[in-house]
């Protein structure tokens, strides 16, 4: 038997993701430096990012609210390894509960010294207050917020 071949391959499948009406409104808001959440009138939770339905109560949501650009860092990680095709390290990610929201959401943490991994627990803290730093140019993307900065 001959040596088994390896055939190189690459997929380039283009997608056009439907964001749906809820995320679309959220992204529109970011353009204006507004962060929209949506309130479930049954369980009173405010969801950021907003969504069509409350998963718990299983009702359609329509009560839009604006939440603050400040919030609490629920937890954080720091990426040190370069993963092919993914952003260049090092960078920090946080789950952030914005003031006025019931649950956290994902974003970058910025203006943090990431050069020494062993120092991370001293630099970032669970429960720390953070604030959104906006991009000058905003086009209706989650990256209209550049990152969240610890206060």
């Amino acid at each position, binding site marked *: 038997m001959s040596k088994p*071949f390896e055939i190189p*391959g690459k997929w380039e499948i*283009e997608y056009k993701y439907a964001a749906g009406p809820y995320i679309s409104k959220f992204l529109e808001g970011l353009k204006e430096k507004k962060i929209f959440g949506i309130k479930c009138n049954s369980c009173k939770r405010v969801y950021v990012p907003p969504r*069509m*339905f409350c998963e*718990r109560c299983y009702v359609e949501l329509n009560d839009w609210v604006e939440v603050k650009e400040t919030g609490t860092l629920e937890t954080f990680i720091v990426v040190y390894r370069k993963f092919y095709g993914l952003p260049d390290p090092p960078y920090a990610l946080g789950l952030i509960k914005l003031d006025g929201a019931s649950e956290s959401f994902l974003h970058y943490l910025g203006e943090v010294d990431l050069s020494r991994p062993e120092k991370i627990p001293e630099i970032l803290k669970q429960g720390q207050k953070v604030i959104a730093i906006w991009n000058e140019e905003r086009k209706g993307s989650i990256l209209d917020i550049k990152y969240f900065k610890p206060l």
Partner: protein
Amino acid sequence: MKVGIISVGFSDFYDKSINERKTYYENSFIATKRALDEIGMNRGDVDVFVESSIDLFAGRLISNMYTCTAVGGYLKDETNTAEDSTLALIYAYMKLKSGLFDVAVVNSSTSLDVDYVHASTTIFDPFIYRPLSMNYLSGLAIQASSYMKSFKIKEELAAKIVESNTENASKNPRAFKKKKITVSDVIKSEYVIWPLRELMIPEVVSGSVSLVIATENIAKRYNDAPIWIEDVAWFSDGYYLGSKRLDFLTALFNAANKVYNKCNIMNPKKDIDLFELSDVTPYHQMMIYEALKLTELGKGYEIINNDSLRINLSGGNISTYLFQATGLFKVAEAFLQMSNKAGNNQVEKAERALIHGFTHVAGASTQTHSIVLLSK
């Protein structure tokens, strides 16, 4: 123990011309909410949830990460089949038959975030078929060609099937495309992949369908006349085109035999009132007739739609093609007919229906054909 369908729900359906598209999982929520509201049920009353979603076409790995709670499965037993959605129904049916659960929601949503033909090239092996740019449509064309050649089928006969399906669609309030297509329209349309012309090929539309099914006692609490699942069967065949008959749907034939034997169906034309078939092309519809033993081999063209044999009252795939959600759409249509709730296209005496589901993501390679037999 019997298991019956007690409610159905649909989202709106969309094609590429509509810009304000929802996400596929928002559509799952809409369809499921409608199905539950219809019978005054809430998600807490449901034990299990089964979806049918294919990651490649949803454009997300693990596409049921989003649908699981959209169908109501928050902190519940939930799973996903990557097949035509009749298999999601069959899986839910098995779960209830096990005696461990009483109520299930079955859902399938189709997204329009990707070009299906293009994406399907990645389903083929990178060694033999992918370098030849095989896709699901080219595989179906190879089968159509083989069928035409074996039985000397003229394309006018295929065009007649398209005409008959779209005639039905024009009367069905739930069909997405209601415009009639005539034989001459079909023949005048361009070849896409010979022998398939543009108007023989269904266009994928986006949308969602949900069913609620329940075991006998619970079913009767919510619906005075549940539509019972009498039997189910499915078979898959092999991958290589050279290893099997291309002009005959052997897997469907085997599934039909299994159901007919079990349910004592000697003459399906007489014993079954409605047929909802996955006409991925009109040539396939003829092959489906033959595999279901509605006619002799090579004589599929003889079957025309009439009052004694009601086929694709929904309008068929050519009118509403929700890709893997198509099977559930057909089950839902049969349910509405049998429940006397079909509206404009309601027919008399719809006591027993056969629904054919068809996983054809790899064209003629490894097809999965399924049958769901419903009775009143």
